[in-house]
């Protein structure tokens, strides 16, 4: 048996009056045939049925009552079925409904019509709590919409890029990267307060346009001067130093190098660098950048290695992920880095990525370094010359190779406590060289 329900014949149609039937029980009807006429507030409409069959029973009389959409109006027996007694109403999906949402049948009174219920469901409105303003207290769409109206949504916050990011034009970024210039140290005279290409160009002329090493060096010296001045001006440095017993490390290193050909030889510097990188993991406050107003720790340890350039000049390119390199890998990368640095073949990412830098002045015969932090980093580690020195071991005096490790750190980010912990970590790591 097919239920013939009052369909919704318009987007806002909720109720209609049944004006008249065009068929009677026993009539054969076919799909598309007009079988009733209804009247809404807007118009009089013809209603067609959607099935072939025979009218079994008309359940509603034409009259002035406003019937909600979905009202069961008649029953149609499909041609396959034999005539049978009327089955009781069950909540099955309506066959004759034209609304967008499939809705079950319902009783004529009590519940709001399906389109209203659907709207309430969509808008998250509890119908049970609602009063109706429609005829006979019926709940209308407008009632639902009114109930659903939330307090005015807060205006979304205007988009502001992270305040710690230096605002620079793409071209300025590109130029600064290729010249190893820190954007944060540049004036910003471009549009919308951005660092522009002109700001970069005025700060350091292009090394690409100059071929003579001499000019490269003087350009570099100017850049260093600017960077170092900026550093000393802006960064409140504090200094700590400690003497590290390298006996275990040097002994281990000698033995390790015995087994290695010259191409795989490990220099002491590699041990110091690896130990520093691992220590930076243990004390993350020394590994990262000062941007804008605060410290942005780095997820990776890209160790800058200060490399002197022949005939004057200094670069400190990054050994990426230094903490994760094996000692052999680190050594090989370090050699490559140094040779490229000294032949002016560094990559821009190596210039812009260091998260902390190490300077190793041991070869120059200096005992202790007092480094100047390279902005926007927040720490720099220095190692002096490895010298044989008397040390106390188990109550006796022995001569061991020692090195003085010093830390320059940004007092805005760390204090003596963290700095001390960091140096202590380096010390501890160098006592177990086999684990480096």
């Amino acid at each position: 048996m097919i239920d013939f329900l009052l369909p919704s014949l318009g987007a806002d149609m909720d109720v209609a009056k049944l004006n008249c039937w065009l068929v009677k029980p026993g009539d054969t009807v076919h799909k598309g045939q007009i079988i009733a006429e209804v009247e809404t507030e807007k118009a009089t409409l013809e209603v067609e049925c959607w099935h072939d069959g025979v009218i079994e029973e008309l359940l509603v009389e034409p009259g002035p009552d406003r019937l909600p959409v979905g009202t069961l109006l008649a029953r149609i027996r499909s041609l396959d079925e034999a005539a049978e007694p009327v089955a009781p109403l069950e909540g099955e999906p309506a066959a004759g409904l034209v609304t967008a949402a499939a809705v079950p049948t319902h009783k004529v009174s009590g519940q709001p019509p399906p389109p209203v219920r659907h709207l309430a469901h969509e808008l998250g409105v509890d119908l049970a709590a609602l009063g109706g303003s429609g005829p006979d207290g019926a709940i209308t769409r407008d009632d639902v919409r009114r109930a659903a109206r939330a307090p005015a949504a807060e205006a979304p916050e205007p988009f502001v890029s992270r305040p710690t990011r230096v605002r620079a034009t793409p071209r300025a970024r590109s130029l600064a990267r290729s010249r190893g210039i820190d954007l944060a140290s540049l004036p910003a005279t471009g549009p919308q307060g951005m660092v522009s290409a002109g700001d970069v160009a005025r700060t350091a002329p292009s090394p690409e346009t100059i071929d003579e090493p001499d000019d490269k060096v003087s350009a570099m010296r100017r850049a260093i001067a600017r960077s170092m001045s900026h550093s000393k001006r802006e960064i409140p440095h504090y200094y700590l130093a400690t003497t590290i017993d390298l006996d275990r490390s040097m002994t281990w290193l000698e033995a390790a190098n015995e087994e290695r050909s010259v191409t795989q030889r490990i220099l002491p510097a590699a041990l110091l660098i690896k130990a520093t990188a691992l220590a930076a993991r243990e004390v993350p406050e020394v590994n990262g950048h000062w941007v804008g107003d605060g410290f942005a720790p780095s997820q990776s340890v890209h160790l800058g290695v200060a490399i002197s350039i022949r005939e004057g000049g200094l670069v400190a390119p990054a050994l990426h992920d230094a903490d994760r390199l094996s000692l052999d890998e680190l050594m090989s990368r370090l050699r490559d880095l140094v040779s490229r640095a000294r032949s002016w073949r560094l990559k821009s990412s190596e210039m812009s990525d260091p998260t902390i830098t190490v300077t190793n002045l041991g070869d120059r015969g200096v005992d202790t370094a007092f480094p100047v932090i390279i902005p926007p980093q927040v720490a720099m580690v220095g190692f002096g010359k490895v010298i044989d020195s008397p040390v106390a071991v188990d109550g006796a005096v022995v001569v061991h190779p020692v090195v003085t490790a010093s830390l320059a750190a940004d007092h805005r980010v760390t204090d003596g406590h963290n700095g001390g912990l960091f140096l202590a970590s380096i010390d501890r790591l160098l006592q177990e060289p086999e684990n480096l």
Partner: protein
Amino acid sequence: MNTQEARQVIFEVLGDIAPEVDPSIVDDDLDLTEQLDLDSMDYLNWMVGINEVTGIDIPQREVSRFLTIAGAVGYIVEHSS
């Protein structure tokens, strides 16, 4: 490899590391650290370069011979086949 050839290799590799060096003014017997401002990394790269060109290995205990040109030349001549 004779002395002449060894010298050639040595200075060629050194040229990559210290390109501004004029071979004619280098004193064969003086410490290169002072003369040419070489650091430990330079030495290592130099020895690695020589090894790559000649195939001769330079174990740790022999490294001190490379503090002078004369020492380096001598080592290479001794160890070339």
